[in-house]
C-alpha cells in the first residue's frame, strides 16, 4: 500500500514536472513567478513607483480576489559579497523585475484550469494602469490593452518551480477571510456573554448570532 502511494506520488510529481511553470500547482493553489528585464535607465522610476504603491487593502493587488500574497521585487545584480561565492560569478547585463503571486482558485469554474492565463487576464483587466506603469519599464512589454499579448509576454517570462508548499491547501482568500471573521465573532460572543446567567437568553443570543458565522 505504502509502495503504491509512493509510486502514485512519483507519477504525480513527474506529471507536474512537465511544461512551463512546472511544479507551480498544489491542489487548487498556484504560484506564478515571472522575471522581466528592466529597460536601461528605468530602474529608479520603477523602484519609486513600486515603493509608493499603497499597502494592504489599497494595494492594486487587492483587486485580484484569488491572490493571497504577492510581491514585486527588483534584482539589480546577483550578490557575490559572501564567503564561498564562485570565482566567476554571473554579472547580469540587465536588471530584472520579479513578480510572484500565490493564488488559490475557486472550486467551481475554469479559473484554476486556466492558470496562469486567468490570473494574467485578471491583472490586465483589473489593474491595467498599474500593470502598464510597472511592466512598462520592462523590455518588450506590449501593454495591457492587448490582453492576449500581455498574457503571452508574462507567460514567456515565467520561471520554473520545483516545489510549491501551501500552508492551507485549497482555501481561497474568501474562505480564509470568512473563517477568520467567524472565529473572531465566536470569540467576541464568548467574551460578551461570559457573565450571562439566563440559559434561555444565552441560547437565543447564540442561535441568532451564529446564523451569520456560517
Amino acid at each position, binding site marked *: 500500500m505504502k509502495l503504491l502511494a509512493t509510486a502514485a506520488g*512519483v507519477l*504525480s*510529481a513527474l506529471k*507536474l*514536472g512537465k511544461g512551463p511553470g512546472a*511544479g507551480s500547482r498544489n491542489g487548487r493553489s498556484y504560484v506564478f*513567478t515571472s522575471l*522581466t528585464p528592466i529597460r536601461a535607465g528605468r530602474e529608479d522610476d*520603477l523602484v519609486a513607483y513600486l*515603493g509608493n504603491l*499603497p*499597502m*494592504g*487593502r489599497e*494595494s492594486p493587488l487587492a483587486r485580484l480576489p484569488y*491572490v*493571497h*500574497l504577492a*510581491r*514585486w*521585487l*527588483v*534584482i539589480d545584480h*546577483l*550578490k557575490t559579497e559572501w564567503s564561498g561565492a*564562485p570565482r566567476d560569478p*554571473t554579472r*547580469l*547585463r*540587465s536588471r*530584472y523585475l*520579479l513578480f510572484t503571486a*500565490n493564488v488559490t482558485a475557486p472550486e467551481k469554474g475554469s479559473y484554476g484550469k486556466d492558470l496562469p492565463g486567468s490570473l494574467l487576464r485578471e491583472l490586465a483587466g483589473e489593474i491595467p494602469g498599474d500593470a502598464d506603469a510597472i511592466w512598462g519599464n520592462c*523590455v518588450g512589454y506590449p501593454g495591457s490593452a492587448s490582453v492576449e499579448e500581455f498574457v503571452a*509576454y508574462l507567460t*514567456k*517570462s515565467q*520561471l520554473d*518551480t*520545483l*516545489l510549491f*508548499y*501551501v*500552508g*492551507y491547501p485549497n482555501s481561497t*482568500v474568501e474562505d*480564509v*477571510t470568512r*473563517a*477568520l*471573521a467567524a*472565529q*473572531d465573532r*465566536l*470569540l467576541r460572543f464568548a467574551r460578551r456573554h461570559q457573565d450571562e446567567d439566563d*440559559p434561555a437568553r*444565552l*441560547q437565543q443570543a447564540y442561535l441568532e448570532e451564529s446564523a451569520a*458565522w*456560517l
Partner: protein
Amino acid sequence: MVGAVNDSISSAPCGDVPYPPEVLDETLNRCGRARAMTVLTPVKPWYRLQGGTAWVRAVFLVARVKTQKPGDIQKLSFIHFARWGLIRRIPDLGQPEERLNQPLFMFESNYNGTFDEYIDAFAHILTKGMSLFWGSSYGFPTPRPVAPFKHYIHSNEYVAQHYYSAYPTATTTMITSALSLEASYADFRALAQTLSPEEFVRAYRKFLTEVQDKL
C-alpha cells in the same frame, strides 16, 4: 483564549493595526504579520559534491512526493506559502543576451514571525532537508550551527519593493485554526437548536472548552 482577530481582518492596510511591537517595523518585506523572503544562490557544477541541476531536480522530485504526506515540512506551521525553483536560463524578452555562469537556486517564502525564528525553525526541524536543498549551492555552510546559515541567507536575500497580503493581521496558525473551526460551528448550531436552555448551557461550555485552543 488568544488570537483575537480584528473585524476588518481582510481590509486593514498593512501597518495600520495595533500589531505587537516586534512586527511594528515598517520596512519592506513585510505586510502586517506576513513577511517575504526571496533568496537566490548559485548552484555548484555537477562534478562537485551535491552539485549540478540534475541532482537538484532529483532532490526535489523526492521532496515533492514526500510533501504529499504529513511530515517535517508540516511542522513549519508559520509558512503561508513557499516556493523553490531553479533558473537555468533567464527568460529572453529581447534584452541583451544573458549567460549564467552558474544556474540559480531560488527560494521564496511568505511567513510570520521574525527572520531569526524562521531560520532557527528551519535549521532545527528540517536540518536534513535544508542540507539537501541548499547543499547544491556555493558557500552553503550547513544549517547548524545556525549563525553562519543565517548569515548565508541574509547575504543572498533580496528586498521586495512591494509586498501584499490579503489578510495582513493573520498568522498561518490563526488561519488553519479558523478553517478547522468551520465544521464545528455548523455541527454545534444544529445541536443547539434541539436542546433545552439548560442542556444548551452545558453543551455550550463543552463546545468552548473543545475549541478554545483554536480561538
